[in-house]
Every structure is written in C-alpha cells, then in structure tokens.
C-alpha cells in the first residue's frame, strides 16, 4: 500500500456555461518516503489533482486514499496525515507574527499548548526564522514567507506533505534553501508530493515523476529512467575547419560559438551517429570533441509534452 493512492480521478468544471474536463481519469500511487513530482503545462490538471487530494475540491469520480483512509468517507483521519503548502502566498496570516502564525495554525489543527511549546522552537530553528519570530509575516521577504509556509506545513508532523509550486517567485538562494529543506524532509522519512514548473528542482530532488497534459497521464516513471531515455540519443560534435559542401543543418542544430563549429544531433538510432561520422571522414572534417549530451529535465519535459501534443 502506498502512502497516497489516487484511483481514476475525474473532475469537470463548468466555466461560463461550458464544461471543462480538468482531470480525465488519473491514477497513481506515491510510495512512503519518496519525493514524487507532478509536472504539466498550465491547465494540465495538476492543481485540481492536488486540491482533490486535500479535499479542497470534491472530484466527480475516483477514489483517494491517504495512508489507507478514503478521504471521501474518512476525511478527518485522512487530513490528519496531510499538510500542504499551497501556491503563492496562500498559506500564512499576514497580520500575525511568525510565531503567532505557527501557533494559530497549530491550534486550528487541534494541537495542545504543550505540543506547540515544544514544537514551535524546533520548527523556527529548521526554517531559520528564529530571529524573526516576532516580525509580522506580511513584512518578511518572499523567501522567508515561503519558509514560514513550509514551517506551518511541518508543524503537525504529518507523514505526507503536499507542495504546490514551492519555489515560485523565489530568488536563487531561497530556491536552493527550499531544495535543501526537501532533502532534509526526505531524510526524515516524509513523503512529499510536489507540483512545480521548476525543472531544476525536479531534476535535483524528485524520485519519481508524473507528467500530465490535458487532464491525462502521459508518463509516470523514475526520474533517472526519463533522463536516460533522452540522454542516449543526444550528441554534440565540435569540429574545426570548413564543412565543405555538406549542409549540416539537415542533421541537427548547427551553430558557431567562440570560433568552434558545433553540431547537436538527436538520434532515433545510434547507427545514425556512425553515418554522420562517415560523412565527416569523407569530407576530412576534423572532429575535436564528441560528447553524449546530458539532457536536462526541462528538455525531457518539453519533449514528452510535445510528443503528446503531436
């Protein structure tokens, strides 16, 4: 049994008199202790999926089990195992201080004075806002507000944490800090469900990735498998001298950079690489460097989504 199970989730909204199918029968499972990323272009159905898991949206069909509890019939039990940082600034009370925020959100989940007294200093330490505990949340920087939102989500010590766009609008340093926090949480055994557009974050932290488009699953696999699927077919050839009569553009992306000529190729089959090598040999083109291009996750994502669109 996974920490989180989503079965045949369907949701249709009525917008301006028209039916909009946001999610069309999505099923997936998130394992204990993993970082699971949901990716997709805008309007793919990511937020509806996350909100359905949190029961902020009631789906038309499908089942969601949180630690075995069906959220439609055992909502309170399921929610006791979940906490979330929602997109943007939708997680903190701007008119309360950092400390008051943690206390308020702890209390409204029913936690006792004793629990909060012990837990809040620990959270403040973890989110590095100990010195800011008496400052109004509204006066903190965007990065600090996001740390506070994460702190609020950590307070109830739930085994599963949902993060919707945790690095959106953050500077590089704050994004790195959030990334570090995610690793620490994973090491503590937390299960994290992440929805993001930040491919760098996915590449660095995710164990498995679910890509959805137009409300349907395109792929759900381990991150490494997705990267490998694209990595082995991309090459970069750096060479010198004239390329003669051959029009290299028909083989891939050809450009010049710092006096070097570069050809980037995407292959369906490795034998195509040998064919190009033969042409280079025939034309006496001196290859200086050949490398297997390390595709980044952004390229993987774009390729998968484009493939689905086509």
């Amino acid at each position, binding site marked *: 049994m996974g920490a989180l199970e989503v079965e045949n989730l369907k949701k249709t909204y009525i917008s301006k008199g028209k039916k909009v199918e946001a999610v069309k029968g999505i099923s997936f499972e998130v394992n204990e202790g993993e970082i699971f990323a949901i990716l997709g272009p805008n309007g793919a159905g990511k937020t509806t999926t996350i909100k359905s898991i949190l029961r902020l949206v009631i789906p038309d069909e499908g089942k969601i089990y949180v630690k075995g509890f069906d959220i439609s019939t055992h*909502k309170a039990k399921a*929610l006791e195992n979940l906490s979330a940082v929602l997109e943007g600034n939708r997680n*903190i009370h701007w008119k*309360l201080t950092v400390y008051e925020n943690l*206390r308020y959100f*702890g*209390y409204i989940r*029913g936690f006792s004075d004793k629990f909060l007294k012990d837990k809040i200093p620990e959270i403040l330490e973890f989110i590095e806002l100990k010195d800011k505990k008496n400052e109004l949340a509204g006066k903190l920087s965007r990065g600090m507000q996001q740390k506070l939102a994460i702190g609020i989500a950590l307070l109830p010590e739930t085994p599963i944490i949902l993060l919707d766009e945790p690095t959106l609008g953050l500077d590089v340093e704050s994004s790195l800090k959030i990334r570090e926090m995610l690793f620490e949480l994973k090491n503590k055994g937390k299960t994290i469900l992440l929805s993001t557009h930040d491919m760098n974050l996915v590449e660095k932290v995710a164990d498995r990735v679910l890509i959805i488009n137009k409300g349907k699953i395109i792929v759900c696999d381990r991150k490494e498998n997705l990267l490998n699927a694209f990595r082995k077919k991309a090459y970069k050839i750096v060479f010198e001298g004239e390329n003669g009569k051959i029009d290299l553009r028909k083989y891939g992306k050809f450009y010049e950079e710092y006096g070097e000529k570069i050809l980037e190729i995407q292959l369906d089959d490795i034998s195509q690489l040998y064919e190009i090598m033969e042409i280079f040999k025939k034309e006496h083109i001196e290859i200086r460097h050949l490398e297997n291009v390390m595709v980044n996750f952004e390229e993987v994502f774009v390729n998968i989504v484009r493939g689905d669109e086509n």
Partner: protein
Amino acid sequence: MKYLNTFKGTFLRVFAEIKRYYLNTLSSFTIMTIIFYFIVMGINKFGNPATLGDSIQGLAVGYIVWMALVGTMTDLSWTIINDMSIGLIEQSFISPIGPTLIYLFYQFSNFVFVIPLEFLIMIIVFKIAGLSIIVPPIFLISLLLLMIQGYGIGLILAGITLRFKRTQSILSLIQFAIVGVLMGNFDGIWKFLVPANGFIDILGKIINGIGTSVYDWFYMLTSAAIYMIVGVIVFDYFANVVRKRGEIAQY
C-alpha cells in the same frame, strides 16, 4: 480537548488582530457612540421622536439592538472575504477540525471581545439618553441571546459569501435593512422568523421594569438556537458547494 485548542487558536487570533489594530477598534467604538449622541441631539432640537421610536428610551434600546446585530451578523462575512483574498481560507479547509467549526469558534472568540465593548457603549448610550445605567442582569442575558441569534445569521451570510464571493454591497445594505426589520412588529410564526423582532419588545419591557414571561424566554432561547443551528447547517452546505465547484480559493 482538540476543540478547546482550536477555540484557543481563534481566540488568540482575534486578540492579536484587535491588539494590533486597536485604533480601528477604538474608532468603531467612538463612531458608534457619537452617532447616537447626534441622534439624541437631533431629536431634542427638532422634537419628533415618533419617527424612530416612541421615546428616547425606545430609541436607545433599538440602537443597542441594531448595533449588536450589525456587528454579529456581518463580522464573519468580512472575515471570510479577508481570508479568501489573502489565502487563509484553504488552510481552514485542510484542518481535520474543518472550516465550519473553526469559523464558529472564531465567531465565539469575537463574541468574548465584543461583549465588554458592547456593554460599554450601552452604558454611554443610556447615559446620553438619560436612562439609568444600572440595567437588570436579565437585560444583559437577553442581549447575549440576541447576539447569538445574530451570529447564527452571520454564519448564513458567511456561507453565502463563501459561495458568491463579492457580497460587500449586501453586507453594507444589511445594516440599513436591519433598521427596517427593527421598526416592524411581527406576530405568530414571523415573530420567530424575523430576526430580532421579539427581542426589541422584551428588552423594552425589561427596561420599563415589567419583567419577562416564560413565553419571552421560550421565544429568546428557541429563536437564538434555531438561527445558530440553521447557520451551522447553511455554512456547512455552502462549504461543500464550493468544494464541489472547486471555488474555495477563487476570489
């Protein structure tokens, strides 16, 4: 125990908000008092108290009832509007305690802070009206029941706000609509259904030293309880409607 903790959370939130924005609280208090002072001055100068009540005494009681209702009926809706716009509302929905209980506790927390202020304004209003500021305890109990009724209506309005979002105009209109309701005199089932209708009569009787009957208490208790129960049901209903429509966060 967890419900007590939730109440503590909402209580501390209300306290922090009032403390931080004390000037706003203080100015509301001053405006409420000054308005009544000018009404009494106007009546004394131009004489015709019949337009707003039988006497200054009736006016003072009516004013206290109006003030108690305006605050209790609309306050939660303003909080919901605020929570929707700054994004706090989803966290209440994610809590295992649930939004209905959290906002009900928020109402009660507000109640605790509003009561002393309400009584203080009442003393000043009675002083201006030339009434005795020593009121019988049953007057205060009746006023409390009226406020509970107001909070029940407040939950209904908050549910409507949750569903239809921009209800500011309705909330502003309500404070004038209440004046109309208070000036009417309904009987039979309408006495129970029209908010505050029977309360004015009973509070007037208490001030005049007539006292209350068993029927008066039955009216006040059932009317307050009915509105509170209906308020909880309606709020819960709209909380589910917005979940189904996926519109909790939209504002």
